[in-house]
């Protein structure tokens, strides 16, 4: 059996004195798509950043491909996992291509400049994010959704094994929500990659994720989709009465 790409043992996460989860055991295998669901302020982003190694856990250990995060070099971590942030802000002017090339940073040594191969990867990533042809534009002139797709292209250019996405569908129109998540999920299903996304749209999670992490009241429940994507569970998470209804491609959840 292949070892998990990301594993957590007895993970405890707190933010500003509030518990996000405790004693969480997690094993994310290659080929799996996970959704993190929870109400506003439940700690979804905090948990995602902890799994990315950007902040230390309150308890427990996190392992990337069987090695504790604390023993890995920052650069090696950045080659294995990439993070799509909730927001991007551009303090300085930069072209779209430059913004995507920043994703190559962990693959370059200290004195190395981006070469033709890096540019090729960046252009491919832009095409995969439906932003081909915008290479020379200033990122500050892009719309919110276009900026989001450039951020996604930068993540693709980073070529991580594990994609950590914080609300990937935000700012995106419906067609891009579907096509871009479909492309990511398809790449993951091919085998050696995994994906964890924080998402507010339950039905997007149901459509693309085979596993879920539900955050509620300071506890996290992790498990396969068929166990956790039930009207009862999700209604408890969101404190809204949800009903399971038949959709064109499996069941959907709608408020009563």
């Amino acid at each position, binding site marked *: 059996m292949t070892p998990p790409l990301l594993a957590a043992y007895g993970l405890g996460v707190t933010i500003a004195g509030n518990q996000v989860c405790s004693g969480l055991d997690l094993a994310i295998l290659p080929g799996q798509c996970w959704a993190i669901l929870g109400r506003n302020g439940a700690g979804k982003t905090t948990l995602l*950043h902890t799994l990315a190694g*950007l902040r230390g856990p309150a308890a427990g250990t996190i392992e990337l491909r069987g090695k504790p995060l604390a023993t890995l070099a920052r650069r090696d971590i950045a080659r294995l996992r990439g993070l799509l942030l909730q927001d991007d*802000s551009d*303090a*300085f002017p*930069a072209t779209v291509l430059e*913004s995507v090339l920043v994703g190559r940073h962990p693959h370059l040594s200290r004195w190395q400049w981006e070469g033709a191969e890096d540019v090729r990867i960046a252009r491919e990533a832009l095409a995969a994010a439906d932003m081909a042809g915008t290479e020379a534009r200033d990122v500050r002139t892009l719309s919110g959704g276009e900026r989001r797709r450039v951020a996604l292209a930068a993540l693709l250019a980073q070529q991580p094994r594990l994609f950590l996405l914080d609300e990937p569908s935000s700012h995106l129109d419906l067609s891009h929500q579907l096509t871009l998540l479909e492309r990511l999920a398809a790449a993951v299903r091919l085998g050696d990659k995994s994906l964890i996304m924080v998402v507010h749209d339950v039905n997007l999670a149901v459509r693309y994720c085979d596993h879920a992490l539900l955050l509620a009241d300071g506890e996290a429940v992790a498990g396969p989709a068929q166990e956790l994507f039930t009207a009862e569970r999700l209604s408890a998470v969101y404190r809204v009465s949800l009903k399971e209804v038949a959709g064109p491609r499996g069941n959907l959840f709608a408020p009563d």
Partner: protein
Amino acid sequence: MSRISAVPALLALAVIALVAIALALSAGSVAIDPASVLRALFASGDSTQQAIVRELRLPRAVAAFAAGGCLSLAGALLQVLLRNSLADPYVLGVSGGAAAGALTTMLLGAAAWLVPVGAFGGALASTAIVFGLARGRGPWSPTRLLLTGVVVAAGWGAVVALILSLAPEAQLRGMLFWLIGDLSAPPAAWSTMGALLLALAAALPFAGDLNALARGDTAAAALGVDVLRLPWLLFALAAFLTAAAVTTAGAIGFVGLIVPHAVRLVLGNDQRVLLPAAALAGGTLLLVADILARQIAAPAQLPTGVITALIGVPTFLYLLRREQR
């Protein structure tokens, strides 16, 4: 920017800098043609010309160039640190801290070599205040940046006023001269140049990391940048550079603001190009400002800071207006 287009850009800036240095060595109350300048520099010849070039104009040109490069590089580093293109050692009160630190050492009657140390201490304290307020936050809004700068600078202004009122008569003149920024008698032009080269050498290995840091702390951390330690390096380098510049040329404003901005407009924001380009262009700008300061009202000499402020204030207001849009 690719490396291929970076090289000609930096070479062009270096050539412009050399032209400015040549101009600084030949222009003045006694005009010396370029051929004679070269002879005076590298061969023995006319002893008067040699003395003017080697002992008066060269140290002054080197001091102006080095101080301008220091201020410009400090501005570029602070701008990445605070993620705001309005950051500048003068605007943020770092120069004021250096001046207050230097005057304090003078007031205490410390040895001359301790004055730069005092300036560094003051600059460090000032940067620490700004940096302490910046820790762990997103990009600085112009309002927050300017308010912090105004308050910190006003605080140092009060300290300077206090020192001047306490200072004995005999020291006062020297202190005032120092404050205005006098390049006519630079204390140690070559050591300032050394400080600039040292800081540039310390910053350049991290230029790639700075490109990631310019996207924000979290984004940089996700790309494998050490976002806990790198800001400390920037912070220390900016204080060191400001202290070196202020010790050489007094509190000259706006070089750290105008130059990185102009370079960014022309060459882009790739820090691997921006940092050396800002050092070269900043040196050239202050050198040209100094030549103008010597020439405009000759034989009277204007303080160099007046010229940079005349260019810098409108640039700053223009940038502020654009940021708010």
